């Protein structure tokens, strides 16, 4: 075992110990387990919501995308800002309603708002479907880090199994409090590591940022701006909008929102969190620094770029620190996602189908489902085939389909009926699923689109279809005007 692996293993053990310690002898009811008894103040909610942003997705995926694709990676910097601006108005009414009705999940929210258990079950299923690629990308990141840091002595397959086991154990034992404390440790570590790498690497290899970007621009003209076709400006616009709208539609972000003690937390966080996004810049700088120093990674291997460059640059013990930061960025969000997915299945799908299930049975089922969900994700991870960013965008395409029905439900006079919401979500998700499974370009799904529109993000087109269907079906199924008086 080399120094890098020792440091990484220590980080994993520390994270497990923190998770166990945070349990603090409290009795774990379902509400305690999933939303921390709704007692988190500003700093912890801040870290939990930020904890999801700074996942393997940004650390390895963001640097990998900058390395492999160039300018398209910029979208990652842009969407969070717009999402936080939306959150200022979006989250307080969600939190207020959820507290008033004592809801612990997004699916309950839809069930109650639309008075339709069937819609709640559908929302839960969409959530689980979207979470699987998100969990897969965390495990993929774990596999990359551990296998490269072991200098090849641990296979990435073994690393994925180990990582999945660690997440499963501490989630089963401590629930969300484990995640919160790990988020604290993780955020400090990732902040320090990313800032250091993002400054050190460009100066060490190129002598500065201007020199680095000029060198890349000379070697690969056009790489640092959006292309005329493919991942073009149109792709950027539709992707940023899709992901900004979907940002808080994830079932686990929804749960994180419910952990807050008071609604002002969200408005204050909306001020600070955009600036926190700027760490991403340094992640990009790492990826850009790797372009000319570890050339030749293509396909899904672009996700390895940050790590390959670290190995080439630093001593094993420091590679271990970078790896430890990377492992935590996968474990913390991975645990949140596991909690969210297993709670959704137990509390929303199982109990939705069998409403007289007792609380303790649901809590037991939620825990029992944790290893099962982890196993499914390991299965998908081992199949491989997609870059980290592509996996997250797939998840976003699914989960953003919940946005129209959610936003309309917050209006005083909701124009959307339960049938409209149901039909819209089904059509949107089906469109995304069809394109994902068939790997077919947009043009074949919507042949009437002009060719220049082909670069629009698939999930965004599906969202358009979703809105049309929602509006159409709602108009057709709206109860008589007398029952639902129009506002002036």
């Amino acid at each position: 075992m080399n120094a890098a692996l020792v440091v990484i293993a220590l980080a994993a053990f520390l994270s497990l110990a923190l998770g166990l310690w945070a349990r603090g002898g409290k009795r774990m009811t379902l509400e305690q387990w999933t939303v921390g008894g709704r007692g988190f103040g500003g700093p912890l909610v801040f870290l939990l919501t930020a904890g999801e942003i700074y996942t393997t997705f940004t650390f390895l995926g963001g640097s990998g995308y900058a390395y492999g694709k160039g300018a398209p990676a910029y979208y990652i910097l842009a969407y969070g800002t717009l999402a936080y601006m939306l959150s200022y108005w979006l989250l307080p009414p969600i939190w207020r309603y959820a507290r008033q009705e004592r809801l612990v999940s997004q699916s309950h929210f839809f069930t109650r708002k639309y008075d339709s258990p069937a819609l709640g079950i559908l929302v839960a299923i969409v959530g689980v479907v979207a979470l699987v690629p998100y969990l897969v990308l965390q495990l993929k990141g774990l596999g990359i880090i551990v296998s490269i840091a072991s200098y090849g002595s641990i296979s990435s397959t073994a690393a994925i199994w180990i990582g999945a086991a660690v997440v499963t154990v501490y989630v089963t034992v401590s629930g969300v409090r484990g995640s919160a404390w790990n988020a604290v440790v993780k955020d400090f570590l990732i902040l320090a590591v990313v800032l250091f790498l993002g400054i050190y690497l460009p100066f060490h290899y190129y002598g500065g940022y201007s020199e680095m970007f000029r060198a890349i621009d000379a070697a690969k003209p056009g790489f640092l701006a959006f292309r005329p076709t493919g991942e073009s400006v149109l792709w950027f616009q539709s992707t940023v909008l899709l992901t900004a709208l979907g940002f808080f539609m994830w079932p686990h972000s929804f749960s994180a929102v419910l952990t807050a003690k008071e609604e002002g937390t969200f408005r204050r966080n909306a001020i600070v969190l955009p600036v926190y996004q700027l760490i991403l810049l340094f992640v990009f700088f790492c990826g850009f620094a790797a372009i000319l120093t570890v050339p030749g990674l293509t396909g899904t291997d672009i996700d390895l770029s940050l790590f390959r460059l670290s190995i080439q640059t630093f001593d094993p013990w420091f590679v271990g620190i970078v790896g430890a930061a990377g492992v935590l960025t996968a474990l913390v969000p991975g645990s949140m996602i596991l909690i969210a997915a297993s709670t959704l299945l137990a509390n929303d799908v199982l109990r939705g189908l069998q409403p007289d299930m007792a609380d303790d049975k649901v809590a037991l089922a939620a825990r029992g489902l944790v290893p099962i969900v982890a196993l499914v994700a390991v299965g998908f991870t081992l199949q491989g085939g997609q870059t980290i960013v592509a996996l997250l965008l797939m998840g976003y395409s699914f989960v953003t389909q919940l946005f129209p029905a959610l936003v309309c439900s917050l209006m005083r006079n909701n124009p959307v009926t339960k049938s409209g919401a149901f039909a819209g979500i089904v059509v949107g998700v089906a469109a995304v699923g069809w394109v994902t499974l068939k790997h077919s370009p947009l043009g074949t799904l919507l042949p009437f689109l002009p060719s220049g529109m082909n670069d629009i993000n698939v999930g965004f087109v599906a969202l358009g279809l979703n809105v049309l269907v929602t509006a159409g079906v709602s108009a057709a199924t709206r109860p008589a005007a007398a029952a639902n008086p129009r506002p002036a």
Partner: protein
Amino acid sequence: MTGIRWLGLLPFLGILVGTAFVNQVEPLVFGMPFVLAWLVAWVIAGSIITAIIYKFDPVNAQSAREHDETGR
């Protein structure tokens, strides 16, 4: 408040519409390609704009008071 709230649209315009007009590498700004620097500027502006909206939003004064009254 109603007027100030519309400031919130600016980052959306800057990022979603504006980017189409600044899709270029040169001139470098703080060493970054121009289009990247443009997005960075909007991230910072987004934060400042939210802070301004927060300051003028009567809801926040109210919720702070309620918070005090519950005695926590």
